[in-house]
């Protein structure tokens, strides 16, 4: 319940307050969102499997976002930023799809 409420409140806050992200951090926003989606799907699957814990979710989310941003940052410094960003999206995308499929199997038994 708490995460869903938090998500909704966050969306509303973001829409209402319209905070501006510093120019330096803007390229990392899409990557951070993909990492966050990966963490969310993973957490939901763990929740369905009965193994969800707040601590692991918080730690895995923060570390995933930081690592994804760091990979893109290093890529930017060595001139392959967009390629590494694609790599991050592909890897996290595969995980999202696998987790979504598992969630679907548990929820709909299909």
């Amino acid at each position, binding site marked *: 319940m*708490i*995460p*869903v*409420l*938090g*998500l*909704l*409140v*966050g*969306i*509303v*806050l*973001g*829409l209402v307050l*319209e*905070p501006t*992200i510093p120019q330096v951090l*803007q390229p990392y*926003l*899409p990557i*951070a*969102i993909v990492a*966050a989606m990966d*963490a*969310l799907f*993973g957490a939901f*699957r*763990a929740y369905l*499997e*009965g*193994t*969800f*814990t*707040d*601590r*692991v*979710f*918080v*730690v*895995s*989310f*923060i570390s995933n976002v930081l690592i994804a941003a760091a990979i893109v940052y290093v890529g930017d410094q060595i001139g392959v930023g967009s390629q590494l960003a694609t790599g991050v999206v592909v*890897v996290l995308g*595969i*995980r999202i799809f*696998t*987790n979504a499929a*598992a969630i679907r199997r548990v929820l709909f038994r299909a």
Partner: protein
Amino acid sequence: MTAPGDVQQASAEQQPERRRPAVDASMDLLNQILRQPVDPDYEIVTARGNEPSSRWRWWLAAVALVIGAMLAIAALQTTQSAPALQIERTELISRIKAAEAEQDQLRARATSLSAEIAALREAALGNGATAKDLISRLNSLAPIVGDRAVTGPGVLIVLDDAPGNSADARDRVLDLDLQMLVNGLWQAGAEAVAINGHRLSNLTAIRSAGDAITVDYRSLNRPYRVEAIGNPRTLQARFVESSGGGWWNELAQNRRMRYEVSTLSAVTLSADPGMVLRHARQRQP
């Protein structure tokens, strides 16, 4: 030497340890992503059986909040940046239009100022014999150098790039091609030449800037219309024989560029606004 039986036994012992048959080792990274899509820590921590503390509950809420805010901000940014780009584009176009209008205005002002200079000059020269001589020399030279609008018979040459969007720059009209053409026209005895309405003088530059050819630093649009005033009986024939005519004949035949020469019974070419007064001297009393 080991007996075949020992080998079989050893592999049978290893079998339960390896849960899955080893797939291609080079695929290990992707396989691991597929096999372990959920953070393994979830299972480890649950197996340890730690009590959930309320402190982490708050962290969870904060993280959920951050994720929601990120989604909202990203969506807002993408929807807002699209019209912003469009606005920027239209603004640039309007700025170009304004600059062009200003340039036209300035040119008109330069023309009227040079007319004023001519009137002042005539007033200052007075009525003496030398003055009359000077004025007649001015009147005969001004049309030739491009300082005065002229009317007369001549030729019209229409040029354009080769049909089809060829990437080859040689299939397009280049500044060099226009230079060769104009030089051919001068050679053929043209008295006044204009490209797309821009009168040429011996100070006019024909050069390319970016993708466009500029005459007098004004960019031209295709097709290029070159008008020349000269002796109607000889101008066209002499131009075809000149180096510029030969150059363009080849371009039209080998590169299929548009190259049409026609005669004009009467055409008016305006004065070159780039002609300015560079040297003046007060009349000796």
